[in-house]
């Protein structure tokens, strides 16, 4: 019972702040809404017996990625850039139709799913979320993914440095 109440609170936080992210005009406030959303998702991870993933979510996502966003937003200035009227305005209704259609389809798929126990109370799980379990899984079964992830990070870091260098060199030419 306590779990369901906790889930309800966290899920409300997720959905409410997600609505805020996609509706707020001011980029700074949208980023703050994203922070709330990410912290609520971390709570959901705790419910799903994933404490390590939850903490990494807070440290990496809420603690670093959104800080990057805020830096760029502060750099670009606060007022939304003055763009003209939306040339694709009349196609927006298609976006809404797609979302509503996907929503109905998802609802039906979830309702008719016959995966055993999908709507029942989950049974006890063993230790799947502790650092020990994650470390074991990475090194026993998923070494390739582990190395691939480090490669992705390296490439992203090199890319970021190159992008910054180009910009600095470009400005020096003026």
């Amino acid at each position, binding site marked *: 019972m306590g779990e369901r109440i906790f889930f309800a609170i966290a899920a409300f936080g997720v959905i409410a702040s997600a609505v805020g992210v996609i509706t707020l005009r001011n980029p700074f406030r949208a980023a703050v809404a994203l922070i709330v959303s990410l912290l609520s998702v971390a709570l959901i991870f705790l419910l799903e017996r994933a404490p390590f993933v939850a903490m990494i979510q*807070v440290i990496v996502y809420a*603690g670093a990625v959104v*800080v990057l966003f805020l830096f760029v937003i502060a750099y670009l200035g606060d007022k939304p850039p003055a763009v003209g009227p939306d040339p694709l305005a009349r196609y927006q209704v298609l976006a809404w139709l797609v979302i509503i259609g996907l929503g109905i389809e998802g609802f039906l798929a979830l309702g008719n799913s016959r995966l055993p126990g999908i709507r029942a109370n989950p049974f006890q799980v063993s230790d799947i979320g502790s*650092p*020990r379990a994650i470390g074991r899984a990475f090194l026993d079964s998923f070494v390739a993914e582990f190395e691939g992830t480090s490669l992705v990070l390296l490439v992203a870091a090199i890319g970021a440095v190159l992008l910054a260098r180009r910009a600095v060199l470009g400005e020096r030419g003026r």
Partner: protein
Amino acid sequence: MNEPLVIITIEALITVLVVLNAFAFATLWERKLLGRFQARYGPNRAGPVGYMQPLADLLKLVFKEDFVPEGANRVLFQIAPLISVITAVTAIAMIPFGDPIHVDGYTIQLVGANVSVGLLVLFALSGLATYALILGGWASGNKYSLLGAARSAAQLVSYEVAMGLSVVGVLMISRSMSLVDIVHGQESSTWYILLQPVGFIVFLVAAVAETNRPPFDLPEAESELVAGYHTEYAGMKFAMFQMGEYVSMMVISALGATLFLGGYLGPWLPGFVWLVIKIVVLLFLFIWMRATLPRLRYDQLMRFGWKLLLPIATANLVITAIVVAVFFQT
């Protein structure tokens, strides 16, 4: 954590009250120590040894006008100091203060929450503390605040990486992220400062930078950028920023004591007293560094963090990994 709710509430209340009082006297101690370092007495007017000084300061700050500057974002302006205090005080729940004690048939754990990822929770909370700076600096509606906040946030993010790496050596030796397990590990072997001296030094330097203390306090120093991100804060909100800074200083000292100095371990005195002694020693180091070292310029600060501290931490990590893997394989 199977204690009744009542005991948990009492524990939490006692801890918070003790910490808030400790913050008050830490400010006094710092000012007196700084005075002594500078060949003068510290505050000694308010009460015998000046011990009423924190009360006087608190009264002054409480009676100041509590305003929100024009052009500022009201909600975020008021939330920023709260974030600073909340993240600092919540971190105390992870620090173990002693072995479980037995009272009245109950077994009381002397730690708020013994989770398998206790160390990561502390890092997560210190990562969230950067938002107090960013939101406070931006919501003030003041260019200097924003600039100070951006610099401060960049500094925090940079030194957070070095701090994390310095701690991984300890993790490899203790094989657990739970702070209680780390203390038990030091009980069976030695204090980890002897096994990880480089790690301890890197952790200490990164900790000073993480708490925005001198010599890494350029973004908030009074003579630079008009006090940076808390330029526009006065009265109780300023007091809350100060509270957040000192409490996070105490929490990081407690973390350093737990990771490297054996936590609550020590002969014949109760564990809690030993931990306080170790925290006081580390706080003394913090204040000593403030009194003696000149401030680093911002680019020197960033260069130091990325080009000197991070490679040292990484080298420590690699060497520790090799030694543990080759010599201590179970």
